[in-house]
């Protein structure tokens, strides 16, 4: 399984683990501080989840309402069954507009459908404009964190990268590096024919899409080019404009620990008058790509409530050690471990539901109360039931559990076995466990034996 191999690679990378520890700890602390300013955080979480549940329950109706209202405001709404269809639609729009260069602001959905590669095949260059995404793209890598895509890179690595690709003098001053990226990207913004963005929330009642960010690159992407394409998963819709209130309070606090990110752009259709600012065309692409299937069960449906804040990544003891790349998916961390198998097929991500200690930290921080451990267990059961990834390890595991179950329901067999183990001093074969920990030796006599020998008659010191 590639997950095991990649996780090992990540664990051996001291620099990566240091950066991860710093980032996840900082975001965790900032998040806690941001929550402290909210008197009824639990109430807000409940309300947000109830809104999401209500929306998903009637997703067909809310999507139709959203599409109708967005179209009434001048947007063109497209429906994409899968990744290939979405890439075709966006590639088609770009070609029709004669676009050679497109600027992109951060969109997980665009990474999910591998849009940049699809555009490149049509001879169209897609430029990532979020600083972290830009760094990752220049380096020919993939993001390792939802909120901080280039968290795996040091400023020295970024300085060398910029010196090589942008021709700037090497500098380890972060502000200088950011300024170099700004200058390079301003030229791209000025020449781009098309802007592609993601969507954080889509309001059915008004046909509005909302995009959150801190840098201003999403505003550039959605304001400067003549055509704006917004790509969104079908689960991004919420019923009412007023519902934005609770989600805007939950998302930045959970993601970056900010009370509000620097910018929220609320876009409703296209400009009304010729002299208005902004694109002439707005295309909204609604992407299914496996999402509708997740509605079929109450357990799996929960994952569609996710607002992509990244809080579960920062809280996860597994993610905190291995980072995003090991998950081998655009969606890393606990939420990725439940989304990837459902979106891209269990066979391709069968190891991910096991990439968790089921400690529940993800569920505790989730602003929409997704029960990720329950989902992980559900998917593990599915892995077993469907017989995906049956390897030697799985056969051994099944055998071990069969023996365990057989012994544990037979007290006399258990006692006899334990006596044998004790007298023969057999150590159980737990190499993976004892590699990092000492196994305590077995007591010379079992508790039951000691009890029968009079332990039960003694009074404890406190009695």
């Amino acid at each position, binding site marked *: 399984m590639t997950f095991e191999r990649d996780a090992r690679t990540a664990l051996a990378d001291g620099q990566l683990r240091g950066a991860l520890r710093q980032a996840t700890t900082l975001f965790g602390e900032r998040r806690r501080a941001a929550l402290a300013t909210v008197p009824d955080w639990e*109430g*807000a979480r409940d309300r947000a989840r109830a809104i999401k549940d*209500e929306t998903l329950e009637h997703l067909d109706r809310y999507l139709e309402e959203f599409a109708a209202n967005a179209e009434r405001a001048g947007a063109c709404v497209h429906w994409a069954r899968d990744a290939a269809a979405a890439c075709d639609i966006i590639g088609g729009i770009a070609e029709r507009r004669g676009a050679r260069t497109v600027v992109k602001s951060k969109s997980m959905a665009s990474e999910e459908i591998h849009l940049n590669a699809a555009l490149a095949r049509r001879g169209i260059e897609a430029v990532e404009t979020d600083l972290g995404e830009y760094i990752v793209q220049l380096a020919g890598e993939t993001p390792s964190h939802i909120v901080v895509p280039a968290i795996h890179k040091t400023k020295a690595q970024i300085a060398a990268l910029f010196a090589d690709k942008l021709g700037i003098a090497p500098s380890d001053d972060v502000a200088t590096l950011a300024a170099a990226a700004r200058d390079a990207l301003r030229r791209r*913004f000025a020449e781009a024919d098309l802007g592609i963005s993601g969507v954080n929330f889509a309001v059915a009642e008004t046909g509005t899409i909302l995009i959150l960010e801190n*840098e201003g690159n999403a505003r550039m992407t959605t304001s400067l080019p003549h055509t704006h394409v917004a790509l969104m998963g079908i689960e991004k819709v919420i019923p009412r404009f007023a519902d934005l209130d609770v989600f*805007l309070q939950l998302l930045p606090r959970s993601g970056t620990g900010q009370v509000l990110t620097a910018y929220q752009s*609320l876009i409703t259709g296209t400009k009304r008058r010729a002299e208005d600012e902004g694109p002439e065309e707005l295309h909204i692409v609604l992407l299914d790509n496996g999402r509708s299937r997740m509605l*079929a069960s109450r357990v799996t449906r929960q994952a569609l409530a996710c607002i992509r804040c990244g809080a579960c990544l920062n809280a996860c003891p597994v993610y905190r050690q291995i980072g995003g790349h090991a998950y081998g998916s655009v969606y890393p961390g606990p939420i990725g471990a439940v989304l990837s198998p459902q979106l891209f097929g269990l066979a391709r991500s069968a190891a991910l539901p096991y990439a968790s200690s089921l400690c529940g930290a993800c569920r505790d921080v989730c602003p929409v109360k997704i029960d990720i451990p329950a989902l992980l267990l559900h998917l593990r059961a599915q892995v077993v039931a469907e017989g995906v990834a049956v390897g030697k390890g799985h056969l051994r595991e099944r055998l071990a559990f069969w023996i365990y179950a057989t012994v544990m329901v037979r007290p006399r067999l258990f006692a006899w076995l334990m006596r044998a183990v004790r007298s023969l001093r057999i150590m159980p074969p737990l190499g993976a466990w004892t590699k990092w920990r000492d196994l305590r030796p077995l007591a010379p006599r079992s508790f039951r034996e000691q009890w029968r020998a009079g332990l039960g008659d003694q009074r404890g010191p406190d009695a």
Partner: protein
Amino acid sequence: MRSGDARREILHAIRTNLESSPPVQSSPSPERRGGQGVRTPEGRGGQEVRIKRFTEQLAAVGAQCTTVRSETEAAAALARILADAGARRVVGSDAPLVQRILAAVGNDIVIDRLERLSRDELFACDAGVTTAQWGIADTGTLVLESARERSRLLSLVPPIHVAVLSVRCICESLGDALARLSVASHAITFITGPSRTSDIELTLVVGVHGPQTVHVLLMEGP
């Protein structure tokens, strides 16, 4: 048509999958739950309290604020802001108030009109001056509506953004602001402090793609 087919297919898949599962056991329907979600503790009070909270929050998010009592004072404050920053080329929005303030700013500064600028010239400007339609006290946020003014690019592209806001337009909370907005504006922008990033080693850099400086001219009086 293919697009129509995809729409039908997706909606059909949604309905089929929803029908195959019992409804999610969830907390009470959102309409029946009280309140508007989160409420911040402080700041319930009159205009004075709102203004105080708004200016405190502006400072917390790294924006500057100057209180002015007239257009003359606003022009003087703007001239100072521009001189201190060494700004030479300034563009104002089409709001009459902005035009009047800019006209009184003095003659060391080149004042351009947005509609006469090419994209390259816009990129070369030092400062953009707009009004803001609303302020949000709880968060130190400015709200700009496209139907009221051409402020979308001027509040974004130049490194300095100066926004004129009347104290009467400061709302209490995000929810209050959302309730006052109308989607007659095709673009509504919420601005909370300057543009920022922590993408390189989590080190905060202010002023990435958007302005490095956000300065609010808070207008008191009639």
